[in-house]
């Protein structure tokens, strides 16, 4: 039996950064918002004993229960997709706050080039540089940096970001709300090396705040204590901006927002008589097993990109992308990330165990189109950075080339190098390819009998070339820092879903200005269903050379504006 609940103005599926932002903005505008969260409530009090590497970082305490839901994966279409049975390549979040709880807090704005990558590349180098004939599907986002700038500014103020201007980034309407974090010995070494090589290093924009800050919603974020437990952990000080200390309480303060935890949405409901709208969502109470329908005037999908994709697909909203014919848009342009880095071995010992998730310095001289690609066999690049996020002993076992992975020599080297190595790396963009996409698995299902998402993904020559180039640049920086020995990364071959790489998955529900090549418009409003919005990194038409959260946050503020406008006028947004 399905119980139908009272209708609300807006329902969000998931309550992390995007759900929290939509909820706060819509609730402040007087709309009644219901946030359906599949996980449980949580907040700063739950992180008082969080300094436990094994429980949180190794055994994934804050992450999705894979026994209930995962994805299937294959590198290419001629392989059989099999379930990702344990967490690895990326970390799927869970519970209130989602991935916004366990993130590091590196808060970069994507570059102006990112949003107009096709037009700007063609203008500077000619159309052949886009390599359409090799299967790359590089496209503009349907929004410009300048259009998105006010929303970046808004997100940075909500999160109280600590940073300094970037001479190689887009124009800013205002400074960061708080000054940069404290510069450490290793950061200063990186800064000196980068300066002497002629680059433009800056302190990394950080959501671990340099000082306590009251945001425009009246929520206070505390000052970071540099305890070095950020990524994969929650912050016991409330000093890492997360949805639980910012937008969720802001939404609740209005009296117009309710979170319903333990509510796993399995379908977006449609009206048989009106194919321009959706009517609400169907969800399962994960504790009782009861089914409910939550009717709503506006539905906003605010879960992680795999789940946003999945809900559209199982609800038969939009047309699935077919890599053979390239018809359909749902599932296309899935992208990921590659890292071009090098490790330096030093005699000096560094305080590598101290730090914060976004304590770092970086330069953008090899990011976007900030350098000439005329004679290069790839586009884009990445943000080159050193970070001091806090090296923890189980996961940090750096050894020299050719060292066995166990035994006496391994033990000696991994212990000695724990405080004597520094790493510099570029976080590289990946560009969409026709063969990389999301589909629905025909065999494996989740705990609610809903099919798993099927990921078909492999690295491309573009990825390998940009990685190879940035490895060399990173190695030069490390050498300039005075390393006695430099160990370069090796260039990736096939994408491997086992080792952790990055939780910067993008695409599948991309935005654009053309319903033929995108799923949502630039308000993140679904092309086919006027009262359905889909927001998150799934909207990215490609993945840039930065961490995604600032851009996700900006898109969520853009989306919130669309939701509020739609609630007033009930019209398509243009």
């Amino acid at each position, binding site marked *: 039996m399905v119980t139908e609940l009272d209708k609300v103005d807006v329902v969000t599926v998931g309550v992390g950064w995007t759900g929290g932002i939509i909820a706060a903005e819509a609730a402040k505008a007087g709309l009644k918002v219901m946030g359906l969260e599949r996980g449980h409530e949580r907040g700063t009090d739950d992180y008082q004993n969080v300094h436990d590497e094994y429980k949180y970082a190794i055994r994934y305490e804050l992450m999705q229960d894979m*026994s209930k839901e995962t994805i299937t994966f294959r590198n290419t279409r001629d392989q059989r997709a099999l*379930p990702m049975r344990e967490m690895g390549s990326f970390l799927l979040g869970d519970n209130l706050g989602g991935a916004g709880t366990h993130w590091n807090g590196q808060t970069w704005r994507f570059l102006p080039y990112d949003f107009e990558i096709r037009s700007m590349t063609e203008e500077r180098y000619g159309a052949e540089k886009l390599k359409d004939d090799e299967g790359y599907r590089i496209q503009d986002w349907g929004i410009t940096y300048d259009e998105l700038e006010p929303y970046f500014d808004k997100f940075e103020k909500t999160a109280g970001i600590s940073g300094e201007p970037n001479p190689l980034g887009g124009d800013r309407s205002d400074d960061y709300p708080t000054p940069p974090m404290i510069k450490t010995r290793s950061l200063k070494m990186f800064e000196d090396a980068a300066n002497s090589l002629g680059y433009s290093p800056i302190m990394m924009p950080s959501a671990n705040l340099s000082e306590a800050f009251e945001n425009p919603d009246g929520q206070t974020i505390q000052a970071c204590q*540099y305890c070095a437990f950020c990524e994969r952990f929650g912050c016991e000080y409330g000093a890492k901006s997360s949805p639980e200390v910012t937008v969720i309480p802001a939404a609740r303060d209005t009296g117009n927002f309710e979170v319903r935890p333990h509510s796993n949405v399995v379908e977006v409901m449609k009206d048989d008589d009106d194919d321009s709208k959706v009517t609400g969502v169907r969800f399962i109470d994960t504790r009782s097993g009861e089914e409910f329908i939550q009717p709503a005037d506006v539905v906003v999908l605010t879960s992680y990109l795999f789940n946003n994709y999945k809900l559209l697909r199982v609800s038969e909203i939009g047309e699935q992308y077919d890599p053979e014919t390239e018809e359909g848009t749902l599932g296309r342009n899935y992208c990921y990330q590659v890292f071009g880095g090098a490790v330096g071995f030093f005699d000096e010992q560094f305080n590598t*165990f101290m730090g914060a998730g976004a304590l770092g310095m970086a330069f953008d001289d090899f990011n976007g189109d900030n350098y000439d690609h005329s004679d290069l066999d790839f586009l884009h690049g990445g943000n080159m950075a050193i970070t001091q996020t806090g090296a923890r002993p189980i996961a940090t076992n750096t050894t020299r080339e050719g060292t066995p992975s166990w035994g006496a020599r391994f033990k000696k080297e991994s212990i000695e190098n724990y405080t004597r190595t520094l790493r510099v790396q570029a976080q590289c963009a990946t560009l969409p390819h026709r063969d990389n996409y999301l589909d629905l698995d025909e065999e494996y299902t989740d705990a609610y009998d809903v099919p798993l998402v099927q990921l078909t993904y492999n690295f491309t020559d573009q990825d390998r070339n940009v990685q190879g180039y940035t490895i060399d640049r990173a190695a030069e920086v490390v050498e300039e820092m005075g390393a006695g020995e430099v160990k370069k990364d090796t260039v990736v071959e096939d994408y491997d879903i086992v080792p952790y790489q990055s939780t910067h998955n993008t695409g599948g529900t991309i935005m654009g200005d053309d319903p033929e090549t995108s799923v949502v418009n630039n308000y993140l409003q679904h092309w086919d269903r006027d009262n359905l919005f889909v927001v998150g990194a799934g909207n990215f038409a490609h993945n840039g050379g930065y961490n995604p959260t600032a851009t996700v946050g900006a898109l969520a503020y853009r989306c919130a504006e669309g939701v509020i406008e739609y609630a007033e006028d009930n019209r398509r947004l243009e």
Partner: protein
Amino acid sequence: MADKDQKEKKFSRRDFLKTTGAATGGIIGGSLLGGSIGMNFGSDMSTEEEESQQTGESGGEESGGTENPGRIFFHNDADFETISQAMERIFPEDDHGPGAIKLGVPYFLDMQLAGAYGNNSKEYMQGPFREGEATQGYQSRLTRAELFTIGIEALNSESQNDYDNGFADLEDDQKDEILTKFEGGDADFGIPRAAGKPEDFFGLLRSATLQGAYADPMYRGNRGMEGWKMKGFPGHQHAYIQQIDTDSFQEIEPQSLYGGK
């Protein structure tokens, strides 16, 4: 396995020490003896033995000042000795400090295998199970506990095969030869590769050893926080804001999360 388990349970503790001594050619390592103390051998245990189980003193002294917390998963002493010796080869005692056994790492593994880790509680374990590409990751129907059980058996059968001896009784370089075969996927695992792979077992063995050496001591490894001391990791510190801007290296006495050692 089941038959063997039942037989083992009928043994008295004295019988056990006698037979194990005989089976291993009279060599009983301190760690093996330490490992046996505190295990439940049934109602025929003497009062004296029960006391030593509670205090853990005799086992502690003989295994190099480490206490014996008892075992949850490994009921068979020879199995525990096999995996202990394998972990010691992964992370051996050396000039830097203690190895896996002195750090209590086998006891860490014991508790992990009895819980969510061993039972793959948070992993997707629905079939069908098929052998995949290496890039698709673990695809076996076996839980980690099952994989360790098979792995221990295979370590011993491979050792018998190559050196006519159980794994725990091999010389160090022979143990390393055997482990290298598992690491490279060349050992006979006794089951089809599609069902379980020796290199998967080795991968878990390696990672669990490092986890036990460096996890908070409340997980029963990293005894005395000696793993952290070797590495220079200060464990649970509330804040580094007072030291974060210093250029010099800071040596900080480690602290565990709840104050235990």
